[in-house]
């Protein structure tokens, strides 16, 4: 069983300052830095307003807030998903290891920053095996069969799905249950060994048992990866995240160590949200 207690003294090493009265903490040596990020869907209307934050390596950072607060919008800016929709405008910068992400080709960037979606979305025409190596297959990257097998087994073992599907690797991915499909989608992302995994409410379409499995998995995965998790579920953020952001109406209201943010929020809005006054 995964130890879900957050070791605060360990975290302290990474943080520049932990001031109890500071709403947004500074992260030492962030793997990802968001700087003055604003995103608008239509002219003059901002879904995300002037957000600046650092993301700590090998941690789970939860982004929470009421519906429409811009948490998914913020997340999707990190792998430049907004570029698909020409009407969305993005201002400000995001740096991955001090490199401006707009300077990295989107194809490379998205291999470094993987994404898991709200609903499980395995490719319906592909087998479980092909789904896991879809990134390689679709890109036309030629790798040996043995290496492929290795990647598939490793990725599926990492998401604790290997034992369940090892005998039906060549069945369609869509035959799996919802929770298994979501773990398959995580495996598909892991196959690339990304640095950061973005998760957009990955458990909101799943039942409690499948949710618990995914949560255990995330805690396990943060040893190797940095996870940014958008969640609608406060208790989930409290259970598994190390750091938490609270967003409201597009603004980053508070960002801090999960434990202190939940027990002793600085901002009044955060407190109201956590105590269920709105949201």
């Amino acid at each position, binding site marked *: 069983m995964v130890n879900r207690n957050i070791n605060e003294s360990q975290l302290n090493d990474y943080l520049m300052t932990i001031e109890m009265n500071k709403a947004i903490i500074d992260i030492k040596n962030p793997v990802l830095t968001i700087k003055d990020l604003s995103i608008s869907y239509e002219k003059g209307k901002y879904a995300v307003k002037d957000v600046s934050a650092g993301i700590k390596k090998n941690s789970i950072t939860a982004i929470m807030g009421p519906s429409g607060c811009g948490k998914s919008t913020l997340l999707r800016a990190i*792998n430049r*998903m907004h570029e*698909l929709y020409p009407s969305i405008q993005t201002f400000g910068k995001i740096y991955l290891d001090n490199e401006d992400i707009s300077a990295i080709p*989107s*194809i*490379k*960037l*998205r*291999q470094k920053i*993987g*994404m898991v*979606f*709200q*609903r499980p*979305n395995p*490719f*319906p*025409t592909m087998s479980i095996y092909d789904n896991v190596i*879809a*990134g390689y*297959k*679709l*890109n*036309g990257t030629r790798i040996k069969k043995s290496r492929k097998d290795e990647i598939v087994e490793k990725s599926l073992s990492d998401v604790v799905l290997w034992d369940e599907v090892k005998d039906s690797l060549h069945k369609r991915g869509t035959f799996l249950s919802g929770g298994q499909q979501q773990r398959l*989608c995580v495996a*598909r*992302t892991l196959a*690339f060994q990304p640095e950061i995994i973005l998760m957009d409410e990955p458990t909101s379409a799943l039942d409690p048992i499948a949710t618990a499995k995914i949560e255990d998995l995330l805690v396990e995965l943060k040893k190797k990866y940095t996870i940014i998790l958008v969640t609608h579920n406060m208790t989930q953020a409290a259970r598994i995240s190390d750091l938490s952001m609270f967003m409201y109406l597009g603004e980053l209201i508070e960002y801090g160590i999960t434990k202190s943010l939940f027990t002793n929020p600085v901002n009044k809005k955060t407190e109201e949200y956590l105590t269920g006054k709105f949201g």
Partner: protein
Amino acid sequence: MGKIRYNKIQTDGFSFRLVKNKVFYCFVIFMSMIAISPVVFIIIKLVIKGIRQINLNFFIDNAPNTLEAMTAIANGEIIPGGIANGITGSIFMVLLASVMAIPLGVLTGIYLSENQDKVYANIIRNISEILQGVPSIVLGILSYLWIVINITRGFSAFAGSVSLSIMMLPLIIKSTEETLKMIPSTIKEAALSLGVPYHKVIFKVLLPTGLGGLLTGILLAISRVLGETAPLMLTALGSSVINFDVTKPTSAVPLLIWEFYNDPNLLDLVWSSSLFLMGFVLILNIIVKKMANKWVYG
């Protein structure tokens, strides 16, 4: 007291409603039977009148001439010969038309589904819808002007297949666009989030996912143009022998039906050819239905 009256009214209204319901149900059944009766009568008539002409020779022999038919009828035999030149011509021209129309139509459909709100896409979509309403004889005349007069300098299979492919285009465009629109955007985003380039996402993820729908649209377009006569009269003209030369006049099953109709001695072949054409299109449609149930995403 008020309560009792209320209950009474409720019950009375209810039984009357039940009767209304029954009457309307029977009415709907009756009307739908009227609606499908032409198809049933056509099939029965075609089978009764056409089946005796259908044998092996019907598929491997060319259309007979009047004299042969007259002799056979005088001797009380069935008309010799078949419609092999029509069958091969139909298949040849439809295949040629498909080769032209499928890539164009599928690519246009992809463009429309990927750029739904662009002004240019809207123009294309509207034009494609107008094209669907253009009478087939007009397309035949256009193909006559472009191909028969200027390119092949004579009636030809090529001219025929061009007019057929123009008829197929709007159907394929529409079905491709609708199929791709039905695929959830998260499938596309999933592929993109794996760092797959946009064109590969379309050709390796979206098209295979929507393959069933795409094939359905293509087969429907094919079965639609298989029975077209008007555009072929002005372009392919017809031929009494099997022809696979794109620059030569070529026959087709619907053209043969028209020819048989105009020759009193060959009238019997109208029924058997029609039966063949109808059966062929029917089988295509059944295949399409089966495929749509099995493959279409969603």
